[in-house]
């Protein structure tokens, strides 16, 4: 819930019961005072003359000027004060037939031992009182209008007034909250800006209140984050540099090793399975190191990925040329077809070459002697790498490309390294926005299709 809404609701929830309770209390208090005053005045007037008249000449008392024509010292209360409805004895027998029988609730209350009982209606109150004497005029009932704070309307008026005061207070609070909310919003915007800007710089600290404290706390936190980020990126840089130089240090001897192996084969070792196996392993090592380096760049994210214009036809030819020796060693026919016109894209050439290379390498590596691998580039563009090797079972196709994936009977067909290589394929395709599909056609083998947009 927003701050303003919460404040308004809280204020209302607090104020409405308080105001209501206060109004009820005020009314109740006023009514009690009214009843007490009625009692005292009635007792006083009855003692003065009323009791005497009532007992001796009840007719006169009834017809008398009690309520109707008040005058100083009259028997009953004056009009302002109210009028006597009836006088009764201890057993609530009316003193005169003109008096109506005593109302049951009032009677019950007096019978219960109360000396005063009151029955409130909207605009008047009836008060039944037991006089401090016995006899035929010992119970008096007076009716008087409700005025002033004792009246129900007045109570309602009080509530209305108080409620409008509450509403005004709430409005005032909301208006007063405006600048605070605006500052919090500004702080929020500043914090978001800081977070998206890699926690560079501080958010502005305004004033000396809690919002300012909050801003300072954010600044302290982002200083901590900056520190950690710097540590991490320093470690990352060191690692990347280490990896780069290691890659270089590995690549040179690996090239020399490949040269030696090639020489061995040329000297007649072509029939020697050991030489062929060693060549495959050397090729695999090179691919592995390149994949690790590619994985490091992909993990480092966007700044490490460089896009520049390149011709996919050239790239496919380069990948095929790179794998032709190893395909020949394995006895796998590796062919490719590219369109006459260049197919230009903006991409990271190293990563793209690694992606296509991994697909071609896998297709060769898991094929059998006499197998085929074809790489086809079509304008538009589509790159298809297909083989007639063992393929991948339907249920595993969807999972190809997960880092840990190696396939069911991986040890025979798709041993070590497939996981990382295909993961890179998937990652590179994703980074470049290319669609990647793996299919096992009916005639067998695996067909991998990369679809992207030329230009």
């Amino acid at each position: 819930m927003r701050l303003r809404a919460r404040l308004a609701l809280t204020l209302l929830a607090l104020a409405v019961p308080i105001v209501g309770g206060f109004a009820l209390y005020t009314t109740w208090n006023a009514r009690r005072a009214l009843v007490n005053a009625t009692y005292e005045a009635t007792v006083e007037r009855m003692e003065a003359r009323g009791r005497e008249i009532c007992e001796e000449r009840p007719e006169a008392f009834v017809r008398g000027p009690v309520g109707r024509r008040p005058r100083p010292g009259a028997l009953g209360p004056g009009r302002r004060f109210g009028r006597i409805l009836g006088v009764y004895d201890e057993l609530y027998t009316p003193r005169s037939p003109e008096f109506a029988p005593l109302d049951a609730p009032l009677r019950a209350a007096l019978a219960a031992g109360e000396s005063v009982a009151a029955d409130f209606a909207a605009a008047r109150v009836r008060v039944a009182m037991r006089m401090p004497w016995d006899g035929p005029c010992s119970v008096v009932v007076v009716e008087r209008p409700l005025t002033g704070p004792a009246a129900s309307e007045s109570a309602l008026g009080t509530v209305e007034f108080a409620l409008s005061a509450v509403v005004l207070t709430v409005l005032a609070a909301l208006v007063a909250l405006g600048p605070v909310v605006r500052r919090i919003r500004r702080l929020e915007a500043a914090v978001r800006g800081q977070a998206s800007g890699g926690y560079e710089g501080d958010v502005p600290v305004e004033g000396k209140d809690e919002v300012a404290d909050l801003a300072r706390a954010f600044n302290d936190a982002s200083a901590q984050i900056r520190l950690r980020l710097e540590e991490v990126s320093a470690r990352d840089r060191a690692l990347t540099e280490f990896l780069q130089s290691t890659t270089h240090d590995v690549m040179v001897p690996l090239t020399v090793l490949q040269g030696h192996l090639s020489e061995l084969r040329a000297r007649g070792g072509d029939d020697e399975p050991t030489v062929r196996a060693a060549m495959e392993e050397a090729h695999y090592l090179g691919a592995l190191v390149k994949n690790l380096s590619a994985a490091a760049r992909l993990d480092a994210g966007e700044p490490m990925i460089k896009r520049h214009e390149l011709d996919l036809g050239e790239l496919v030819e380069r990948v095929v040329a790179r794998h032709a020796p190893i395909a020949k060693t394995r006895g796998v026919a590796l062919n490719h077809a590219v369109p006459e016109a260049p197919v230009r894209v903006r991409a990271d050439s190293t990563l793209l070459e690694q992606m296509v290379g991994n697909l071609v390498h896998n297709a060769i590596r898991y094929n059998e002697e006499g197998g085929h691998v074809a790489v086809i580039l079509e304008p538009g563009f589509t790159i298809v790498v297909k083989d007639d090797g063992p393929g991948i079972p339907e249920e595993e196709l969807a999972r190809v490309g997960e880092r840990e994936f190696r396939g069911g009977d991986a040890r025979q067909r798709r041993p070590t390294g497939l996981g990382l290589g295909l993961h890179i394929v998937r990652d590179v395709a994703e980074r470049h926005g290319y669609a990647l599909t793996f299919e096992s056609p009916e005639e067998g083998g695996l067909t991998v299709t990369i679809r992207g947009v030329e230009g």
Partner: protein
Amino acid sequence: MAERILVVEDDAQLGRQIVEQLERAGWAVKWIDDGDVAAREDPAPYALVILDLMLPGTYGLDVLKRYRKTSDVPVLILTARDHPADRVRGLELGADDYVTKPFWPEELVARVKARLRRPVMTRAEGVVVGALRVDLSARVAEVAGAPVELTKVEFDLLAELVRRPNQAITRDALVDRVLDPERMGNARTLDVHMSRLRKKLGVESKRIATVWGIGYRFDASEDA
């Protein structure tokens, strides 16, 4: 006389290997293992330069810059860095091609050959190879001097393959370019035309190779 190749490579073992491989392939090779020395070398007498980017003393790209001031000699870059920046800068500075380490000797030799290869014939005009002669402008095909009677589709098919010798061309591409779209040509129709064409070419039919998963390729090598 054999063409001369300049190899600029700081690693002793790798340098020696590259020299041997290139010499075995028939080129005359000069090897320099120091960047500063390489920078002073005049590239003019060489048909091609192989330049390793990771040279001590002088950064390989500086050597390339130096050479480009005076010469258009093809330069093939060797790099071990797995980052496109080197390649892009190399190509921007005028390198013609690059090979990344590790590479197989065959790959390097193939790249050098591709750079030094001279066009044997003008492809637009046709081809004369073995007993086969194809004249694209006159739309004539002869085997051992005898004209081969070809339908329009058959000749178009042959022409498409001959125009891009030694390159595999997909069935789809051939269907697109050769078959009449009005008559719903497909890959099967294409194969039928191809089998007739091969029959008519007789002894030279072997020049049209079926390429698994792709389509067909015209083999223009003399010894095929």
